[in-house]
């Protein structure tokens, strides 16, 4: 059978746009995490909400930084 060319999972031209988007969302979530930490007192804090916000923010930040590295030419 004829060999099929392999391409990257995301089209090359989309990397900068994707990185800006995911990093923006990740930073907004990070900001909300830190605002939550700063405004609530020890009694009213909920660990579940902290962990979920942190997890979702770290997912977006992780992908955002990966796409940022690729868009800058460091093909990891």
């Amino acid at each position, binding site marked *: 059978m*004829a*060999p099929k060319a392999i391409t990257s999972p995301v089209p090359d031209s989309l990397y900068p746009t994707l990185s800006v988007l995911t990093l923006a969302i990740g930073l907004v979530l990070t900001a909300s995490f*830190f605002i939550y930490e700063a405004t609530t007192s020890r009694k009213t804090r909920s660990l579940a909400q902290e962990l979920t916000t942190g997890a979702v923010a770290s997912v977006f930040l992780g992908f955002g930084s990966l796409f940022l590295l*690729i868009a800058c030419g460091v093909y990891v």
Partner: protein
Amino acid sequence: MLRFALTLLLFTLAFGVLSSSPVFSDLILAKVDRRIDLTSQIVRITTSLKVENAGSNPISEILLSFPENQAKHLAYLTATLNEGKGKGKASSGAGLPTEVVIPKDVPDSLTFYSVSLHKGLGKGESLLLDVLAVFTHALEPFPEKISQADIQLLLFQDTAHFLSPYKVMVQSVAVKLPEARVESYTKLEGTKLSGSELKYSPFHNIPPFSYLPIIIHFENNQPFAVAEELVREIEISHWGNVQVTEHYNLFHGGAKNKGEFSRLDYQARPYVRGASAFRRLVARLPPRAHSVYYRDEIGNISTSSLWGDSKKVDVLQLSYFCSTELEIEPRYPLFGGWRTAFTIGYGLPLRDFLFESDGKRFLNFSFGSPINELVIDTLIVKVVLPEGSKDISASVPFPVKQWQETKFSHLDLVGRPVVVLEKNNVVPEHNEHFQVYYKFNSLSMLREPLMLIFGFFFLFVACIVYMHADLSISKSSASYLAKVQWEEVQATVQQIHNIISHCLTAHDKLEASLRDLSRTGDVQACKATRKSVDSLLKGVSKDLKPLVTFLQSSPQAAHILPKVEELIAKERDLQERLMAKHTTVVDCYEKKLGGREIENRIASNQQKITSLRQEVDDLMEFIDEI
């Protein structure tokens, strides 16, 4: 050199007379055309053979022989069958397999290569065979050292008779020289020098293993670029890029430069003072190459030009091919014996080179250097595959030395597997494609973002742990207790704030329902809203009671308590007035009174409501900021 050639001649003539082994005399070479191309530093000898089987057995292999001093310079040997009858038609078949053999009863100083035929040559049949032999370092500079103003003269030694284990009926030799200037050449009978082509007249009936030495001393000013070592690193990233980095260690392989170098003379008349030096090299990169850089140990070298995606016509095959042309100029012109070292790097799109078939992925890439007419003494090609590649194997169309290494690069845990291929004596004819096969699970690509995600998550967890940790040393000191109480007060005030904001949203809902009423006239919906808001507000007052009691009991809340109580009172007042206004308006609608009438009735109430609302908002802000 000459003495050796003479002894070889005597020896082979004697051998030819004394013995004749039956295997060799079965084939007869009816016509041999040799074209020796001396136009560059690489010597290319194209031999067209017409082979006839004069014996009774079918023959499946043909032997080619080279004298030892020539064989050690042999870099590339290929034999193809010429299907066409006409002379000059390019052979289109793939190369036949050739390998080194050591037959019995042959002189020691010859090296034999055996060409295997696909189907045997039957009795009485004949076929046409094209043999291309490429030699490196076969031109000796003579004189060995020249000054800047001298011309570079080279010595080429070969045989006029085709050295072969078979008898040759007719053979001719044509030598193509780079320039019309020849210092001296061996004059046999019937040799003709016309322009830059030297023809030796046809020789007839040559016995096997006959060697007639000829020497040509000529001028050649083509660039003698020789790379002592070239390391090509090809790094594959499944995110869409193939990065090639080439480290060159070049020197000028012609006559060595002696004496002084005068830059003034060179720049004033470069073709007179320094004709043998070369200033620039042209590299042909694959199309769609990007991020090309050219640097050395000092830094970036700016004397270079890049033409992207230029179309060239390949005259031999009459086909178009696209390539990116890079012209580089080292920091100084290279005279004989001078060296330079630099690095070229470029990136290529992944889809041109990585393919998938039968569950395995393979990289299809060219083996040699992209620089034109470059001789490489040692070529090391390293293919760096992404982490997690398994079952790695390489298939190269010519023999190379292979082994595997590991390289640690970005975001690596165990390192990336590297396939290393090494070959000596590489010429541009070796620029064929080779394949590296491997298996890769697509999910392994997620390992890299997962590493980054875990890194960030660890930061967040550290932050949470820090906020939750109670680092005070003494749990009964006055300041610690005061801090704990203050936090409790803060929490309570926060809760009151939340409840009051709920109330305010309920008020907004009421106002909105009034506006809807004026728009649609739906009284029932309005009434329903009022009922729900009513029940909500009743629940609120119940919730607020314990919180206020706590605040009253706590000493820390002394300065906030009056404000909070004021807030609650104002909010209650606002609530009552709003409800009254709402009832009035609904009644008016039921009685079908006009808009002016409604406004009159609720005018005073409305003023109070707006001012109260403003005060409540101010108090909420104040409480929020403590």
